[in-house]
């Protein structure tokens, strides 16, 4: 009998896998470690301390930027998810029509367009609007973030809709549910994990964005990533590590919360 091909026992695979893990996690690991450095170097260990976390916490600029980031991400994620949900329903729950494929690619286009191009385009557009209206608030950033978050929110929602058994909605209609009630009592509850996933994804993507934000923001509208980028031009202290570590924990928390939410939803499936 020929030996069965098993990728796990091929020579070199384990080594390559380990190497990949190293590449992914060693930088993050060192970043987290040096956040607790008591010295001012991000490369020479001098002892354990919470000094830089305290420094970041007392730095008004950091706190302001963080609050602004979360604000923008939360609002953009909610609007983007709402728009993406409607788009996903329109592209999966209607009879096929001319231009449907075009619409798919149109919605997902922002994933393909280089971010810098979108950034420049938005900069030009928004500067015009600023001149016309005189408004220079957070609205521009929220609008820009909403725009590029829509495809990220759209993908998991559409996937969930496509996997949903259409007979369920038919059964509800058969049992005297009007189209609105079918959506309210059947489609929406079953779609909820997808919507949640889309919203989390949009939130994280917005929180993390730097290119578009850098171009669109007005003076004094630093978000956490643009603030950090600005700091890198000066002397880098472990304060950056501390901020990044908190950022990392926040993202992990979101992912973990989502994981448990979606798992509890799958159980009831």
């Amino acid at each position, binding site marked *: 009998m020929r030996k069965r091909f098993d990728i796990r026992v091929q020579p070199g695979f384990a080594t390559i896998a380990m190497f990949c893990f190293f590449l992914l996690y060693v930088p993050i690991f060192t970043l987290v470690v040096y956040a607790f450095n008591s010295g001012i170097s991000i490369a020479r260990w001098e002892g354990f301390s919470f000094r830089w976390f305290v420094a970041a916490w007392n730095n008004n600029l950091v706190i302001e930027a963080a609050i602004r980031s979360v604000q923008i991400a939360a609002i953009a994620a909610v609007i983007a998810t709402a728009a993406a949900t409607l788009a996903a329903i329109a592209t999966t729950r209607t009879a096929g029509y001319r231009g449907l494929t075009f619409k798919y690619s149109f919605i997902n286009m922002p994933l393909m367009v280089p971010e810098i191009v979108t950034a420049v385009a938005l900069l030009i557009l928004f500067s015009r609007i600023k001149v016309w209206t005189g408004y220079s608030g957070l609205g521009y950033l929220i609008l820009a973030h909403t725009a590029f978050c829509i495809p990220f929110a759209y993908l998991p929602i559409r996937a969930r809709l496509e996997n949903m058994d259409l007979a369920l909605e*038919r059964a509800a209609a*058969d049992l005297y549910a*009007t189209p609105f009630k079918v959506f309210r009592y059947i489609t929406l509850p079953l779609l909820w994990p997808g919507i949640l996933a889309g919203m989390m994804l949009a939130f994280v993507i917005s929180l993390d964005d730097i290119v578009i934000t850098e171009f669109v923001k007005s003076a004094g509208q630093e978000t956490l990533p643009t603030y950090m980028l600005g700091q890198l031009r000066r002397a880098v202290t472990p304060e950056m590590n501390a901020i990044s570590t908190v950022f990392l924990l926040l993202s992990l928390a979101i992912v973990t919360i989502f994981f448990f939410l979606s798992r509890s939803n799958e159980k009831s499936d």
Partner: protein
Amino acid sequence: MRKQQELAIEVRGVGRVYGDGAGQVTALSNIFLNIRQNEFFTLLGPSGCGKTTLLRLIAGFDFPTDGEILLYGENIAPLPPFKRPVNTVFQNYALFPHMTVAQNIGFGLEMLGRPKQEITARVEEMLALVHMEAMRNRKVMQISGGQQQRVALARALAPKPKVLLLDEPLSALDYKLRKEMQVELKRVQAETGITFIFVTHDQDEALAMSDRIAVMSHGEVRQVGAPWEIYDRPAERFVADFIGETNFLTADVISIDGQRTTVRLSNGSMLDATYPADITPEGKVTIVIRPEHAQLAAPSKAALLAGQIEDLTYLGTDTHIRVRLPDTSIFTIRQQNSRVGPIGFSAGDAVALTISENAAQILKD
């Protein structure tokens, strides 16, 4: 009983065509059916024959391109599904996974805006009807396939539909459970007195359960009748072939006397045969004889048919015997093993065949 004869559903000249131009597909053409109140009516046919399309038209998931569907005299064909007092048991049940058994059953009444008390009472009644009282608070994914089937039935019956549609509801169950559910469905139908329209491709299921059967193929109704009529008096080759095993013989019509005619078989023997009411047989015809309506006999000059046994298959309850006729065609006989012991014939024996009275039927085509 006057009510028995009232029509629940009248299908009048219904057609359904998909697409247009060269890619046009006709799923149904010019269907006429009358389904009586309290009837267990079955749409039977191979996959792609249009039976499910017709059910979907009655349920409102699709709309006919021609004709009308009357529900107690009212044309429901253009109405959306939620405005039709008709409910469906789906092939894969389509139970709502995020609700309990009781919530599933109560959904229809909930949507109709009935008072809470009435819903609770009706749900209890339905749970009792399908023997699922113990499962009321389970999620539907936590119960077995047979139990899901019962819940789907209860859910569709809870709003007291005027007609219940069943789309191959037993096809996902294993053999034993399917037999149980056949009995169960008949019982529920008798208890509730609701008209059932049942779709299946399984001829045994259709024969076992139906009051009347409509056999369909290629988007048309081929024959409508009681199970025995469909089985013993098939109107055409497709129906005879689709339902059970059968023997086809060619013959010449000699004389007609009322609903009975005499035909001459190719070996010269004379045989009485019945024929479909809507034709007058003449010239060369095909007749059909079921395997269990022929018997083996010792060879004799007076025998109707003679031949040689090709092979025998012993099946416990009965024996299948394939006899080669002089014209080299095969005639199948199914003989019940009512006597204990060997059958008394073996392969290669020359035998005569006798045919039961009224067993031969002339086909339209």
